[in-house]
């Protein structure tokens, strides 16, 4: 919105989304009518909460309010945090101890005997998050049906608790065999820790994951304990700072599932935040699917080092049950985001055989591409795009960074062009084309894994380095319609505002469909719902601030059964229709299961009864329902172009040609861009190739029709 419009708009019942990235902290405010306003500020990595408060001041300024006026009118703030992600990536989390069943101290280190990278025998062994001296055994044993084989030796447990404390651990995982069937021993161990008056961050494996498989459970609990204390401190600091600044609204945290949790609960369930930021992008993609009235959208987000791909089907981001991050396994559901090692910083080089390759290694942000002038000496995708004229040396990132074209050229000449006998431009075009091919191939694979034909999808691209390749990717996949949202630069933060509060619980069921009774299923679901109600009552779910009190009735429950054929390992999730009542489960499970199985695998086992492995319940509180953000052609920062913005660009597409340079924020609904042209904003540049046409749609997005279909 333009400043004059922002000020005259009646802002009330606002929600604010905040996403902290490596470079920028993005803020988006939405009000009850869906109107949005956005701002960006530099991140403050030492204490990210500082940047948040800075951003809030800027946002209030944009709204023409004082901060306290803005806080008064704000219902809640939704935050996506990279604290858990970074803690895990940098391996600088808490010193964690484990108490586990006698005989099973090494489950985490044995890793189910797996390793990635089949031809690489030289990678050093990665130590697990909990080292062996911090893994202590306690005398107890349960049977697979929950019976007690060896009772808990409490005196011994107390000794082991003291031993861990003496080792100086900051967090404790209690991981016992079969605890998902009978949690009594894990609960008792926590009581004993409390009895010792030890205020330590404690994680019980069955509370993090209520399902069979000790490695999955212990590993997920270990991640939770490893990132939890730091996340807890960070969220505490952020809340304190907000209170100091006079804000009273509750703080909700984006989960990897695309749901929200109150800060307190999020700190306890820290493993749920590991892909908090990217989940915002997927949620925003679902929002656009809804706005556009389409069911299926595939989105890719190309940043500095990676491309994240997510798929929205039937209007919802697709989920996965498990995540593997290098050697770490996380077995709780999350939005399924495929990460491909390709970004602006990806390194282009000739391989040992003399053929040009791109990635998977990256120059990252530091040293970064050669043209950043921060010491990078290897050719990157960004360098190639600069040489081709797609990126402007003077107005990159809205002029915040000057790019060194001469250096980029020199390095491409020496490392690629000369050895291959090409001109610098041709070499750069090759790097650019490889990038489009790699993104397209990854998008295709993502669709195929879900049994979908990429041609039936809408392509959406966001992230700084994506827009130059959008049209090429769509073209390569024969996708007729591609979209670059105007809010691309604050996409995750926008997605936070389209999310609902969500809590999950699950328990094993373990019966063939043919043996499952409606009563047994109902009892399992009711127990889960009771547990969720209790968690809600315990959690500070809306701070008593919004829509009355933390009333359980404001929640809705969604029930799921995870099914498979008995001898299989992976399951398919089916939602339980609301009206099943006392119907025999076969009546409502079989047909949808077989349909979904066929979609994924192309066949069904008609003579075999499916097996219901797990029952799950998600509790939602619809906070976004009434007021989804409604982007428009006055969205984003609505910033004017830099003074030196060039309206004519010289780009290389096989030959040097002059094409128009347009400023995204100046294009209004209905505007039409005939390719070839470049559309630039402060955060990304979109290339519209010859033969393609782009229009600004009702939501302010650049909508590209590919050359084949136009």
């Amino acid at each position, binding site marked *: 919105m333009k400043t004059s419009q922002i000020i005259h708009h009646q802002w009330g019942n606002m929600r604010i989304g905040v996403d902290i990235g490596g470079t920028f902290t993005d803020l988006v405010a939405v009000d009850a009518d869906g109107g949005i306003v956005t701002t960006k500020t530099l991140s403050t990595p030492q204490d990210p909460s500082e940047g948040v408060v800075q951003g809030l001041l800027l946002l209030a300024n944009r709204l023409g309010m004082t901060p306290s006026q803005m806080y008064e009118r704000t219902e809640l703030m939704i935050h996506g945090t990279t604290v858990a992600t970074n803690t895990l990536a940098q391996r600088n989390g808490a010193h964690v101890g484990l108490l586990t069943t006698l005989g*099973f101290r090494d489950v985490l280190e044995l890793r189910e005997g797996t390793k990635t990278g089949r031809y690489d025998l030289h990678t050093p*062994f990665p130590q697990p998050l909990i080292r062996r001296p911090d893994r202590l055994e306690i005398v107890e044993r349960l049977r697979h049906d929950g019976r007690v084989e060896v009772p808990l030796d409490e005196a011994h447990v107390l000794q082991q608790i003291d031993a861990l404390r003496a080792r100086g651990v900051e967090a404790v995982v209690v991981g016992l065999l079969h605890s998902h069937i009978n949690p009594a021993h894990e609960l008792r161990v926590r009581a004993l820790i409390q009895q010792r008056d030890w205020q330590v961050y404690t994680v019980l494996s069955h509370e993090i994951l209520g399902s069979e498989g000790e490695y999955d459970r212990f590993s997920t609990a270990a991640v939770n304990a490893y990132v939890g204390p730091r996340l807890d401190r960070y969220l505490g600091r952020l809340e304190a700072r907000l209170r100091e600044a006079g804000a009273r609204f509750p703080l909700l945290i984006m989960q990897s599932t695309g749901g929200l949790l109150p800060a307190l609960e999020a700190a306890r369930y820290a493993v749920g935040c590991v892909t908090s930021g990217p989940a915002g992008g997927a949620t925003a993609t679902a929002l656009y699917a809804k706005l556009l009235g389409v069911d299926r959208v595939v989105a890719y987000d190309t940043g500095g080092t990676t491309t994240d791909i997510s798929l929205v089907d039937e209007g919802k981001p697709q989920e996965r049950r498990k995540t593997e991050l290098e050697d770490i396994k996380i077995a709780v559901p999350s939005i399924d985001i495929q990460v491909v090692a390709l970004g602006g910083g990806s390194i282009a080089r000739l391989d040992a055989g003399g053929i040009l390759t791109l990635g998977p290694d990256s120059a990252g942000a530091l040293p970064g591409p050669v043209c950043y002038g921060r010491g990078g000496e290897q050719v990157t995708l960004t360098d190639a795009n600069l040489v081709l004229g797609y990126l402007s040396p003077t107005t990159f990132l809205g002029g915040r960074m000057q790019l060194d074209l001469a250096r980029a050229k020199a390095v491409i000449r020496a490392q690629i062009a000369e050895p291959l006998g090409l001109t610098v431009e041709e070499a750069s075009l090759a790097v650019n084309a490889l990038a489009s091919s790699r993104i397209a191939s990854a998008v295709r694979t993502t669709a195929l894994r879900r049994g979908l034909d990429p041609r039936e999808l809408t392509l959406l691209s966001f992230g700084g380095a994506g827009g130059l390749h959008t049209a090429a990717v769509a073209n390569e996949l024969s996708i007729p319609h591609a979209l670059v949202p105007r809010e691309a630069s604050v996409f995750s933060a926008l997605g936070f505002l389209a999310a609902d509060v969500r809590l999950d619980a699950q328990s094993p069921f373990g019966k063939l469909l043919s043996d499952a009774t409606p009563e047994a299923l109902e009892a399992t679901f009711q127990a889960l719902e009771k547990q969720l109600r209790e968690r809600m009552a315990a959690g500070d779910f809306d701070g008593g601030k919004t829509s009355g009190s933390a009333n359980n009735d404001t929640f809705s429950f969604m029930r799921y059964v995870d099914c498979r054929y008995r001898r299989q390992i992976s399951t398919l999730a089916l939602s339980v229709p609301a009206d099943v009542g006392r119907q025999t489960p076969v009546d409502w499970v079989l047909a949808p299961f077989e349909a979904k199985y066929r979609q994924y695998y192309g066949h069904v086992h008609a003579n075999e009864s499916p097996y219901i492995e797990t029952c799950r319940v998600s509790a939602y509180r619809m906070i976004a329902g009434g007021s989804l953000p409604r982007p428009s052609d006055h969205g984003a920062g609505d910033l004017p172009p830099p003074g030196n913005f060039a309206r004519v660009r010289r780009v290389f597409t096989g030959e040097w040609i002059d094409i128009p340079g347009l400023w995204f924020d100046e294009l209004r609904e209905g505007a039409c861009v005939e390719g070839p042209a470049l559309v630039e904003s402060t955060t990304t540049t979109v290339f519209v190739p010859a033969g393609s046409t782009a229009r600004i749609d009702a939501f302010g997005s650049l909508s590209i029709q590919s050359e084949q279909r136009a």
Partner: protein
Amino acid sequence: MTLSAHPIEGNGEAHVEACATSIGMGDKVTIDPITLSVVRFKLLAVAEEVVEVMTQASFSPILNQSRDFSSAVLDGVGQLLTQAERVPIHMGALPFAVKRMLEAFEGDLHPGDVIVANDPYWGGSHLPDVTLAAPLFVNGELVLWVANRAHQGDIGGISPGGYSPSAREIWHEGIRIPPMKLVAKGVLREDLLRMICTNSRTPEDMRGDLLAQMSSVVRGVARGAELYDRYGTRVMTAACDAILNAGERAMRQQLSQWTPGVYEGVSLMDPQRAGEAPLPIKARITLSGDHVKVDFSDCAPQVASFINSPLANTKAAVNVAFMYLSGGQDGQNEGSTRAIKVITRPGSIVDPLEPAPVTACTTLTASVIIEAVMRGLEQAAPTRVVAGFARRFRLAIGGTDRVGKRFIWHTFANRGGAGGHARADGWSNLGVVHNPGGSPSPSVERTEAAYPFLIETYALRPDSGGAGQYRGGLGGIYILRYEGASVASITPTGDGAEIAPYGLAGAQDGQTHAYSIERAGVETQLGAKDANLTLQPGDKVICRSAGGGGYGLAARRDAAEIRRDIDYGYVSEAAARAHYPQIDTGYDERSHGNLADRDHKTAESDARDGGRHG
């Protein structure tokens, strides 16, 4: 924005010249380097799409979950251009199968054909691995093959699943399929499909899996056709040649960095029968500049047991060894093998003649061949070779469960340690060198729920890794109490109960597998070839798996690492004192954290150096 839509004009001729010199090898290259790198990537994408289709469409858990299959794209004469990273031992072997298909149907291949074959004496490896391959024709010329090799759950033979220690000839091992047309000019031969499936104990799965293979290669051919449409046959042919040449060049460059010479590597298998000597596989390796000859002429004659390795498998295993040695760089293809000459003596254990049985070749014998090459190159490529890994040693327990229902259980847990190398210790509990860490072991909780067992322990086995500057990875201890309703049979198969994983560069060997049965407090050792053993309810099976071999002199091991090993319980104090005299020097509490940091940094710098962490 595609390159084909924007041909670079004006200086096309100059490209040809420039490439001929830069990509070199003296061939006539008529492709520009831009198209070349894009085409190479797109061919890989074809192989990957075959994998996706297969994963979705296949029936058996071994395929859609364990993914025991591989895909490749080959040129018109059956040279492997690119592969989707799956089962290492499949890859080098695929070209043999496709070349024999070409031979079998010379002059009689047509668009829409899909060929099936599994016979080891027709270019196959072992019978469970069934290969389907489809040719792509452009203007009547055969230009490309897309192949998919998948391990079928059951292909008949004496034992369910195909591994029959008692097989004495190939016919005992299952159905033999020479190259045959499963699909002829686009028409599926139902009769042939029925005949093949009828020979399986699980005909429904077999049918689904074969059809999945078929649809995957058909899809691959369609994608390949799109590439030929877009770039034209002339460009594609040039690209295929250039891709192979680049693979060759990369391997030659790697080989020329090693020390030339004539080397011998020997690796032993456990004796096949009590009282016999261990069975050696000997590789005489001549490394001369940028090429290498691996001569197995001295190997033992073929035996009447399933450990014979057909030539395709032997060459594939050599290929895997060189992939490990060169770090498995991108762009591996058949060009790389041009620099590696493998010599065998027909009728020997590594090049058997019909009717020798072969089923264990892709696992056991492949491991031993890989080891022989590694050991041979200890002097030539000291920073690349890896010490010995634990071998596969499996148990099958068959009996009745708690409620009297019959069951058969196979061990997939507790695989043993990996060997150390010139930069780091070996991994613990990783297992076999032919497929390190390839498939996850089942959980203790699920095992107890599904079988009449109580697992008492699953833990690292201290002191099992060979001592050295870099220690071998640890094996594991897995103790299982049998709780069935009646007596059960227990059948061990495998290797490594007598031959220990070798140490390199002066390091110690790892400990061997040591399995036993404990009945009423008395432990009885379990041999890898024992038969007709029983388990009583209440008996314990104690599995101690082998540790990896070490690398380098123990006296050079960092004192802080020795201390860490003792603190962590990887090595007992007594064993440490026996192997490492330097134990009492140079350690202080703080070096702990530094050590951890150092581990991490090494991993990071590896990643920067292009090491793979995929």
